[in-house]
């Protein structure tokens, strides 16, 4: 993609930033702080650029010149709402941005209700309706019993509207046991995830930056 010199310069630049961030492991230092601030600044600029490349240009500008008639002029509405959103930067008239935010929040809430009921609640409840008895021997259904018990006791553990007393305390305790097993599994996978990220960076340092030693 890049010529020999540019590629080499880029790799050394990348290695500099990588080692600057890693230097934090010893202690906080100017190299780390510098790299961190460059990262935050670049991220902020990317979001501004993306706004224009993926939103304003295709959805407003190109659409306005591509469409005709009603479809063309109706775009004034989202354009006006977008400008209202930007009034948030001006303290005296920032209250106007509430109209745009209200629209966004309303749509989000509407989508959340339909999505949650149709996409989570009903399929997940349906998935929990598994046979607990049948023609096979008991061991065939053990996993189903564990599934149903796990779901119910987990839900019950997080139900704080009634006092967990007596038998209810036993249910909550069973719930916490299931939860701890699940969190242990989640921790195991989280370790795998974090180590993978480190593998990626060390791979770059060994095989791209120090490629003259490691091929």
């Amino acid at each position, binding site marked *: 993609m890049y010529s020999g010199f540019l590629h080499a310069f880029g790799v050394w630049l990348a290695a500099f930033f990588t080692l600057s961030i890693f230097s934090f*492991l*010893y202690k906080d230092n100017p190299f780390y702080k510098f790299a961190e601030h460059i990262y935050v600044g670049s*991220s902020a600029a*990317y979001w501004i650029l*993306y*706004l224009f490349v*993926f*939103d304003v240009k*295709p*959805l407003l500008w*190109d*659409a306005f010149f*591509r469409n005709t008639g009603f479809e063309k002029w109706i775009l004034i509405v989202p354009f006006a709402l977008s400008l209202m959103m930007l009034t948030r930067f001006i303290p005296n008239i920032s209250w106007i941005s509430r109209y745009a935010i209200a629209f966004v929040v309303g*749509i*989000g809430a509407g*989508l959340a209700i*339909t*999505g*949650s009921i*149709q*996409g*989570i609640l009903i*399929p*997940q409840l*349906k*998935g929990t309706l598994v046979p607990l008895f049948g023609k096979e021997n008991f061991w065939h259904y053990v996993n189903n019993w564990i*599934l149903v018990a796990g779901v119910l006791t987990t839900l019950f553990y997080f139900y704080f509207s009634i006092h967990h007393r007596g038998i209810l305390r036993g249910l909550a305790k069973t719930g916490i046991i299931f939860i701890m097993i*699940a969190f242990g*599994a*989640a921790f195991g*996978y*989280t*370790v*795998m*995830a974090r*180590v*993978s*990220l*480190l*593998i*990626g*960076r*060390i*791979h770059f340092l*060994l095989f791209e930056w120090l490629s003259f030693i*490691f091929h």
Partner: protein
Amino acid sequence: MKKIYDILEFLGKIDRRWIFLFVFVFTTLPLALKFKVRVTPTEEVKIAFNYIENLKEGDRVLISIDYDPASMPELQPMLYAILRHLFRKNLKVIMMGHWPLGLPLGKTALEEVAKEYNKKYGEDYVFLGFRPGGSAVMVAMGSEIRNVFAADQYGTPLDSLPVMRDVHNYDDIALLIGLEAGSTGDFWVQFANARFGQEIILGCTAVIAPNLYPYYQAGQIRGIIGGLRGAADYENLVGKLGTGSIGMWVQSAIHILIIIFIIFGNVGYFVLRRRRKRSV
């Protein structure tokens, strides 16, 4: 005896910089030795692989890039393996994304693998890009993709691209593969699958993999390719080992190291606790 207890108690007080050093050494050494290891693929990945294997030549597959460079080491090898599988089976690839910071990664992989298999842009694959909106984009695509993506990333109208000519909504897409580093996968399931019946396979970081098992059991997704292990599994199934498989040796070493450190920490803790009880 006291000396043994002193040593055991010390095991619970190791300075963290020594731990960092051990982690660094145990990562670098296996990587430098470049062992690639064959793994036995897990059930969820095999099912995902077989689902794609059973698709017909010419079927459209939508890939959604929902990760950024922070998750690249896990999901990029996965993407390469999946693309190789899709192109080998002569499936048509439509790529888009909900995480704009990761889109260039997806685009790079798509162009590289397409070149390997002599695939032509516009005929065999297309890159649509990103639109803000998340779940709104997913719902809008259910009626007409052109409502959201009137043109591809380069401004070419979709109707002039053979691969997109007969593709209007999820009914025309055989499979959606979401590569997830956050909660976008949940939205794909809630909207694309639940509302429009789109078949979905989710590749994800290991952090969120445990959260997807309820969808898998309920039949809302057809497979889970979780973390670097999932990437290594898929590489093994496709038959071309890459960075996923290289990383498995390192994973083994580091996992064992961390368990050893946890044991040390607990030994030190229990010895200290016993000593404190005795002194009281």
